[in-house]
C-alpha cells in the first residue's frame, strides 16, 4: 500500500516535470497535455473532472499551470500529491530561466533555437486542437442544447470579441446557476 502510494506520487511528480519542461505558451497548453496524460493515459481523472479543474484553475489567481497542478495534486494524492505536482511544475521553468538569464542574448538570437521553437509551435497548436476537437465532440454527444449554446457563445466571446476569459467563466457559471433554479421552479410547479 505504502509502496503503491509512493509510486503514484513519483509518477505524478515526473509527469508534471516532463509536461512543464515541454509546454510552451499559456495555461491552456499545459491543461491539454495534462488531459492526455492524466485522463487518457493514467485514468486518474475523468474528463469532466479535468474540465472542472481547468475552470477552477482559470478562475483562481496566479499561473493557470500552477493552479491546475495544485488541484490535480490534491485530487490524486492529497497534500503530498499537491506538493509533488507543484514542485514538478515549478522546477523546469526555474532551472531553464536561471540558466538562460545568464546569457540570453546568445539564446534569443540563435538561428537554430528560433527554428526549433518555430517548429515546436506547430506541434503545440496541433496538440491543443486535437484535444479540443475530442472535448468538443463529447459536448456535442451530451445532447443538451444549453451546452451547445454555452459553447458557441463562449467561443464567439473569446475568439471574435476578445472578452476577458474571467468574464466568460463567470457568465457560464451564472447561466448554470440560473438553469438549476429554473428547473427547480419548474419541478415545483409540476
Amino acid at each position, binding site marked *: 500500500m505504502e509502496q503503491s502510494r509512493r509510486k503514484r506520487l513519483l509518477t505524478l511528480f515526473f509527469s508534471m516535470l516532463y*509536461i*512543464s519542461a515541454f*509546454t*510552451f505558451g*499559456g*495555461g*491552456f*497548453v499545459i491543461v491539454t*497535455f495534462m488531459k492526455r496524460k492524466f485522463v487518457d493515459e493514467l485514468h486518474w481523472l475523468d474528463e*469532466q473532472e479535468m*474540465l472542472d479543474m481547468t*475552470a*477552477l484553475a*482559470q478562475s*483562481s*489567481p*496566479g*499561473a*493557470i499551470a500552477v493552479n491546475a497542478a*495544485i*488541484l490535480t495534486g*490534491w*485530487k490524486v494524492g492529497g497534500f503530498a500529491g*499537491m506538493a509533488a505536482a*507543484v514542485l514538478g511544475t*515549478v522546477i*523546469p*521553468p*526555474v532551472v531553464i530561466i*536561471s540558466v538562460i*538569464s545568464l546569457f540570453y542574448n546568445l539564446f534569443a538570437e540563435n*538561428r*537554430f*533555437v528560433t*527554428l*526549433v*521553437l*518555430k*517548429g515546436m*509551435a*506547430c*506541434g*503545440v*497548436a*496541433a*496538440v*491543443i*486542437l*486535437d484535444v479540443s*476537437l475530442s472535448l468538443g465532440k463529447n459536448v456535442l454527444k451530451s445532447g443538451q442544447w444549453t*451546452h451547445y449554446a454555452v459553447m*458557441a457563445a*463562449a467561443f464567439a466571446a473569446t*475568439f471574435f470579441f476578445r472578452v476577458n*476569459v*474571467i468574464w466568460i*467563466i463567470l*457568465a*457560464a457559471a451564472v447561466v*448554470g446557476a440560473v438553469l438549476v433554479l429554473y428547473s427547480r421552479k419548474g419541478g415545483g410547479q409540476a
Partner: protein
Amino acid sequence: MILPQLFLSFVQIGLFSIGGGYVAIPLIQSQTVDLHHWLTAEQFMDLATIAEMTPGPIALNGATFVGMRVAGLPGAVIATFGCILPSLFIASLLAYIYRKYRELPMLQGVLASLRPAVVALIGAAGLNMLLQIAFGGRQQISPENAQWAAMALFAGAFFSLRKFRLNPILTMALCGAGGLALGLLGLM
C-alpha cells in the same frame, strides 16, 4: 532588504494575475520596472521575449528572471515562491470546496455549464495559435502571408495525433526537429 522586497512584489503579482499570462505581464512590468527599478525597460523586453520562448508560465518565468538579476539564485527561488504562494492557498481552498460540495445540485449545474465554456476557450486558444503559425497572426490572413512549411508541419502533427494517437510531447519534439530541418533547407 532586497529579498523580502522581491518576495512581497511577487506575492502581489501572483495574487492579482487572475486569468493567466497576459494579465501577469503588465503587473510584472509595474512592479519590477516602474516601482522598484530592478529592470530597465529594455531588460523587460528581453524578459518578455524569453518568457514567450521558453516553457513555463509567464509569471514564474518573470519571477525567476528578475530574482536572478537582482539577487542571484536565492532571489530566483524567493521570487518564485512568492509568486506561487497565493495560488497555494486559493487553489487548495477551491480543491477542498470542489471535493466536498461537487455533489450539490447547484454546484453540479454550475460545473455542467462551465465545461462547454472551457472547451470553447481551449479551442479558441488553439485556433489563435494556428493562425499565428500559419499567417503570423489573425490580422494577416492572406495568401501572401501564408507560411506553407509551418502549415505542413502542423498538418502532419495533427494527423499523427488524431490517427495514431502519437504521444503529444514526442509530436512536439518531432515538430521542433522538422522546423530545424525545414529552416536549414531554407523553407521555413
